[in-house]
């Protein structure tokens, strides 16, 4: 039985079909979840995709976190369900308190749309379990507010707990400690600014995102059981 991945759609989300397409290319089933619904409809894993939920008004993710679906995702995550937030989805997860820190504007003052090289610094997360430690992956970024920041105590905690799962090899946006992706304490919620779903087809110039999406498909309780 294939893994069903719920992909959340807020007003202003625009990467949901990229995520569904990547999941389905890798043998999973993608199912869109509307933000106003309050259950995850029995999916095995959840992706909060990129875009501009609620127009990014107030702050990216600030309004989205109050959607009924976010309550359902918090419960799903608390039960151990795998959840990945990509780009705007990462911002939503930090605003919702499911991941620490915040994403501030890029230090170079520019919107960035380019390829980046990520290094896998922990394979102990639902997004990296199938990756090779230290492997370098070519994955694109597409953001203005992707500069990860947190207080020094939180950073020390993330470092001590090996929760910085992906780092930029050549930091494009000023993120503290070159952070591209982090996970929660239980390692079943991961957020990252780069877009692995856009690196799952030779036509797009890289298939390095496949190992990350495949890790998520592998992480579902349906597979682990």
């Amino acid at each position, binding site marked *: 039985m294939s893994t069903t991945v719920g992909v959340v759609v807020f007003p202003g989300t625009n990467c949901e079909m990229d995520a569904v397409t990547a999941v389905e290319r890798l043998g999973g089933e993608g199912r869109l979840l509307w933000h106003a619904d309050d259950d995850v409809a029995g999916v095995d894993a959840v992706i909060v995709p990129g875009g501009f939920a609620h127009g990014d008004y*107030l*702050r990216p993710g*600030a309004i989205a976190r*109050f959607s009924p679906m976010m309550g359902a995702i918090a419960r799903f995550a608390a039960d151990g369900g795998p959840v990945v937030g990509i780009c705007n989805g990462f911002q939503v997860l*930090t*605003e919702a308190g499911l991941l620490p*820190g*915040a994403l*501030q*504007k*890029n*230090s170079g*003052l520019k919107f960035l749309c380019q390829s980046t090289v990520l290094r896998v610094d922990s394979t102990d997360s639902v997004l990296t379990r199938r990756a090779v430690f230290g492997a370098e992956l070519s994955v694109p970024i597409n953001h203005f507010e992707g*500069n990860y*920041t*947190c*207080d020094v105590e939180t950073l020390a905690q993330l470092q001590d707990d090996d929760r910085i799962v992906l780092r930029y090899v050549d930091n494009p946006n*000023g993120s503290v400690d070159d952070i591209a992706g982090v996970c929660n304490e239980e390692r079943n919620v991961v957020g990252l600014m780069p877009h692995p779903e856009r690196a799952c087809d030779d036509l797009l110039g890289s298939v390095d995102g496949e190992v990350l999406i495949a890790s998520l498909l592998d992480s579902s309780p349906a597979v682990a059981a």
Partner: protein
Amino acid sequence: MLVVRYDVLVDVRLRRGIADPAGATIERALPALGYDGVVGVTVGKTVRFTIEATDKVDATSRSEDLCASFLTNPVIEDATVTVTPADDRSDA
């Protein structure tokens, strides 16, 4: 119970050390416009609303709560909340 209306002004600022591209860009442009010696430009945002409350303490407490839980992200932003009796002339 008597309900009183208060105008609330929330001044949201980026915390020190948080990237402020808008402020930096404005500051860099100023010399070209002939304004020398202007430093420390920061750009924040202002949120205004009117709240119904039993008194000013109630209005302030609920506004600060709203500010902390929604209007600001304490990881990157600070805010000050100013509460004044509502100017109801706009209802006339």
